């Protein structure tokens, strides 16, 4: 009897807590916009530099300058990519969130769907300096088409095909302009037992899904229709994916080991240590390449080529966006901060250490001293990039298609073959998963 009543009392107390939990989520949202007394913003930055500490070193003086100018203090936390998505999720779920956060811009539409972020509507957009200051394609990643974006671009990134100048010269080759040329060159530059034509981050689902997207885009294929429904199994999608897989499978220009490369770092290292002639990476590879011993003049960059007759898409509009949590208690301060982070001076200060492309219209890239490379990347970013699907299910597209590609690469690497039909079947499974959970 006693135990039962004790348990009942405890359970009642505990349930009271959890019931409070149900209603607690929107407590804070009413208080936005106030510019009350102590102004300290919490800012979660993503890892852009060589280490979390490096990021902190770069950002600290920049934030200090902001504090000096405005009197608003900024409490910085740099979060590694391993943790960032989970941390943002739990922040959304709990309402216990920072004021301002960096997001991978590919998540923008998915995060927008949670309704946890402040839309940059007319007023808010004006407060941060107006939408006209941004490169239009970059701003387009900020949220679903036709809505007020819930994020604005901060650092621009784009894929480029890095090639080793000495290896190309030794083989008497010119950097490729079409997919076919790239494959031919890569084959010539593959020396059994010594060197490979290309390195792919074939075990990284996030990298893989980008190439699924880009290759399909070169085939003029989309991953979602106008209603936001997945269309993964179209011919262009299947052929695009297969074309990329074939670099390892049919063309054999990439080391099967690449199937185990679970992030871009490993393929870039292979390039920097001259084990491969080409690597496709975003422009922030520069700092890694140099850190691993290759000098700036030893490599060149051209756009990642499309097949002859294909659509000239060389990259998705990659990069980092900045979002403000809706339930911030310091809305005005947060907007001031976003304005500061996206103004021309701050941008040019940060683009260099973080190897980023300018997201502002009139800015010149300064992440590299190589003028040709800078021009190439800016051209790719401004004219040859297409945003990833701007739909709420984008995150599921990334994980399902990306992981399907991991598995197919693994199969190829371990001696199996993957036919077009199997690609289609794998994409069908991915499509079903997305459809089932939306």
């Amino acid at each position, binding site marked *: 009897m006693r*135990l039962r009543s004790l348990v009942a009392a405890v359970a009642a107390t505990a349930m009271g*807590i959890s019931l*409070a*939990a149900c209603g*607690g989520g929107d407590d804070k949202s009413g208080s936005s916009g106030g510019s009350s007394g102590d102004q300290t913003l919490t800012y979660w930055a993503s*890892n852009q530099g*060589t280490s979390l*500490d490096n990021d902190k070193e770069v950002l600290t003086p920049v934030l200090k300058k902001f504090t000096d100018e405005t009197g608003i203090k900024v409490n910085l936390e740099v979060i590694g990519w391993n943790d960032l998505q989970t941390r943002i999720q739990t922040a959304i779920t*709990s309402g*216990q969130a920072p004021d301002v956060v960096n997001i991978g811009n590919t998540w923008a539409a998915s995060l927008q769907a949670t309704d946890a972020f402040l839309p940059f509507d007319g007023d808010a957009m004006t407060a941060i300096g107006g939408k006209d200051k941004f490169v239009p394609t970059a701003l387009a990643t900020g949220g679903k088409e036709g809505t007020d974006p819930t994020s604005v671009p901060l650092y621009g990134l784009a894929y480029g095909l890095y090639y080793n100048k000495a290896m190309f010269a030794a083989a008497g080759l010119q950097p490729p302009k079409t997919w076919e040329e790239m494959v031919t060159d890569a084959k010539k530059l593959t020396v059994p037992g010594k060197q490979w034509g290309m390195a792919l981050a074939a075990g990284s689902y996030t990298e893989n899904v980008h190439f699924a997207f880009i290759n399909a885009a070169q085939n003029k294929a989309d991953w979602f229709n106008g209603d936001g429904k997945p269309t993964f199994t179209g011919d262009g999608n299947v052929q695009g994916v297969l074309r990329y897989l074939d670099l390892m499978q049919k063309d054999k220009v990439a080391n099967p080991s690449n199937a185990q490369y679970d992030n871009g770092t490993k393929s870039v290292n292979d390039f920097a240590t001259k084990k491969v002639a080409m690597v496709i990476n975003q422009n922030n590879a520069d700092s890694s390449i140099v850190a691993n011993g290759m000098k700036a003049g030893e490599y060149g960059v051209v756009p990642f080529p499309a097949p002859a007759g294909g659509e000239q898409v060389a990259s998705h509009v990659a990069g980092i966006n900045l979002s403000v949590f809706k339930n911030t208690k310091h809305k005005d301060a947060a907007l001031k901060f976003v304005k500061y982070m996206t103004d021309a001076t701050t941008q040019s200060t940060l683009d260099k250490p973080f190897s980023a492309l300018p997201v502002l219209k009139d800015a010149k890239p300064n992440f590299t001293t190589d003028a040709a490379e800078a021009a190439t990347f800016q051209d790719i970013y401004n004219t040859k990039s297409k945003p990833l699907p701007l739909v709420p299910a984008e995150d599921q597209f990334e994980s399902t298609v990306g992981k399907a590609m991991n598995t197919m690469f693994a199969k190829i690497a371990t001696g199996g073959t993957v036919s077009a039909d199997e690609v289609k079947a794998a994409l069908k499974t991915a499509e079903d998963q997305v459809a089932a959970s939306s």
Partner: protein
Amino acid sequence: MRETRGFKIYRGVVLTVLGLFVLVPLYVMVTSSLKPLKDVQGAFTWWPSNLTLTPFVDMWKTVPLARYFVNSTIVSVAATVFSVAIAILAAFAVSRFKFRGRTVFTTTVLSTQMFPGVLFLLPLFLIFVNINNSFGLQLVGTRLGLIITYLTFSLPFSIWMLAGYFDSIPRELDEAALVDGCGPMGALWRVVLPAARPGVIAVAIYSFMTAWGEVLFASVMTTEANRTLSVGLRQYSTQTNIYWNQIMAAALIVSIPVVIGFLLAQRHFVAGVTAGAVK
């Protein structure tokens, strides 16, 4: 068992095979921590091309390892102290009293051990957040939250093991203490606990190891301020490089305190497990 020739051969084979199985990873961990970066990026070698201690120097700079170390230590020690204290009380009740709900309690507590962590990870997080919102007690992103969580992880097994241990202590001993005028708590403190020392030490080690090695909850419940080693070690693979030599050096350093502690007290641990297991 007689030590026949056959048995000696058997023993030789088993000890060699298992010895290698255990030792090779430990050997790789130690030697790789003494290698320069280029050694761990190329083909595997049994011996460093040149011995270097730089990984042990650099590892503190690549990630704020010292802070994670302090966090892990505080969290694990506190969780251990509370867990052991609470387990002793509960095990004493289970072992020495007959009361309504005793079976319900033991089955329920033991069965929580099999709840998959993913099931209550998110709800627990939400409850913590709401406690913060309602009472201002910060549990997410603090060591306190981790301490409370971790101490419950080791609690069921600790209670079970200690209850088994207490059962093996003759009840006549505490009855004597009762007769001498001690209350039941006096009997616990003066008689049962001293006799159960090995069990208590075993439970303490178990609790400490549980807290020190937990990954899942740490990955969601920690922020930069209270991050523990289990999550912190993942940060060595940064955007630009994977510092395997530093990872191995850090893994070695974080292992040393627990391994030494465990090995020093292993006798008690074996005795504690015996009592629990034979129950």
